[in-house]
């Protein structure tokens, strides 16, 4: 069994999760501080990829980065850099698709955080950066971690947008998701089942990690002895 699709899926999911971690937190931080009207509008735009079909996201990406578009042509001519139909192209697709997951969990965590704690740090003379890194981030640790794991899990299973911008080239752009589709088309059920098993195993591990994180959070919030009632 050629393990390339697993390696490719993992590297795409890992790189995009790192990007989405920072992008999501940054966006959530700025949106959480905005006045109500602007907040609602921006929130809609940033959440859109969550509800759009991934193929629509892929379509937009192709129209932005494809070799015949101004940006794609410029990149190709100046840097000899071809973005579509390569494995790094999938990173863009996965970032777009998983961004709303991280952004929304981070925003939820920030908005339920006690603002007095932030105010306390500032009136004590500590910089806004200190308050962000030393008070807000540790306080929202569990929520942010849960968002990251969810984004990673979703990224690992991304199919629609990825297949459009990266295509399926065995040994070059194939991911677990595109491989399973290809194997089904070829009628190779035995191999398809093995990839499905790999995928299910990884997903279960990730979901268990999310559950563990959430349970820890509840243990801290709920008084002891509650479970016996």
């Amino acid at each position, binding site marked *: 069994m050629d393990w390339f699709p697993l390696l490719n899926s993992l590297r795409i999911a890992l790189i995009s999760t790192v990007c989405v971690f920072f992008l999501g937190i940054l966006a959530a931080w700025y949106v959480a501080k905005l006045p109500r009207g602007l907040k609602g509008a921006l929130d809609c735009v940033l959440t859109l990829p969550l509800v759009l079909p991934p193929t629509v996201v892929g379509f937009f990406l192709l129209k932005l980065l494809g070799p015949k578009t101004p940006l794609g042509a410029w990149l190709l001519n100046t840097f000899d850099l071809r973005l579509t139909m390569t494995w790094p192209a999938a990173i863009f697709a996965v970032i777009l698709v998983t961004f709303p997951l991280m952004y929304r969990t981070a925003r939820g965590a920030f908005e339920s955080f*006690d603002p*007095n*704690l932030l*105010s*306390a*740090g*500032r*009136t*004590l*003379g*500590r*910089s806004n950066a200190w308050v962000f890194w*030393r*008070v807000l981030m*540790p*306080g929202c640790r569990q929520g942010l971690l849960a968002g990251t794991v969810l984004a990673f899990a979703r990224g690992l299973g991304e199919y629609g947008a990825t297949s459009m911008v990266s295509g399926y080239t065995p040994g070059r752009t194939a991911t677990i998701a595109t491989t399973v589709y290809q194997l089904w088309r070829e009628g190779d059920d035995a191999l398809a089942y093995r990839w499905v098993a790999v995928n299910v195993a990884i997903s279960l591990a990730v979901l268990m990690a999310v559950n563990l994180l959430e349970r820890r959070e509840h243990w801290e919030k709920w008084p002891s002895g509650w479970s016996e009632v």
Partner: protein
Amino acid sequence: MALEVQIEKKFEKFHLQVSFTSSDGITGLLGASGCGKSMTLKCVAGLITPDAGRIVLDGRTLYDSAQKIDLPPQQRQVGYLFQNYALFPNMTVTENIRAGVRDRTRRQAAADELLERFRLTDIAGKYPRQISGGQQQRTALARLFASRPACLLLDEPFSALDGYLRWEMELELGELLKDFSGPSVLVTHDRGEVYRLCQNACVLSRGRSEPLRPVRDLFQSPDTLSACLLSGCKNISRARPAGRQRVEALDWGVILDAGRPVPDDLAYVGIRAHFLAPHPGPNPIPCRVERVVEDVFSTVVMLSTPGGYEGSARLRWELEKDAWAALGGPEAVTLSVSPGDIMLLK
């Protein structure tokens, strides 16, 4: 050393207009919930920007809309004690106090000194959720003093507590604040706290501040309706002047002798429930007994007055249980009140 505040800010629901000057000692801002008390403190601390006005602390301008000065909270040197103390939950007691020390080089030394002074040495390594409410208050104050504030803002510090603990914490706060030389502002809706802790106080009603007055004056002779209500007065009637020293209490249907000139803008009169006397005297008010309520240490008698609607209790009279028993459960009484005990309100 003084804190001068004169600010204005418009909100959807109300218009905040506050002005007071707080000199050394504790100044009380007394008001019902939602009247803009906390908002005022947040403006002073720089957490909220007012629309217009000036905030000056010891000659330092913290905010001035005309000169376009608006210092960030970090530079204001204003110590803010939050309602829930706002201790950083991810830091130990020591780390919380260290967070307040501005001078990087003597962070640990300053923290050690404060741990000692606030009797926190034994719990220095514990997290806020592991220590008692009293210890949390001391930690919050130690952290506050670590930042060397030029003034203190106390935002309903006891509202989350009740009963005996509340009383203990109040005593302790009073002790700890004795060493502080700058101005402090205490925001609360509890008249007792203001009376016991503050030298001067101003009443805030629906976003507007009334003039600052010495606490004893404010409680003994409140001159506005909101001040009178906040001072705990239970008997208030609409009123109008009825002569040079006389006033007609419209809800009670009697004319009272105030024993002093009645101001033209008088709109209400107030009589404290325990200043009513059942024996003949000045200002007789004939009443019918409507209801008798046994309180913990006294008896409360609800009365209706001649001008009052049939059956609706208009006067509240409080007296010792024995005194009420001695009267033998009358159906009607005539109460008197001395002219000095009638509060004339705007």
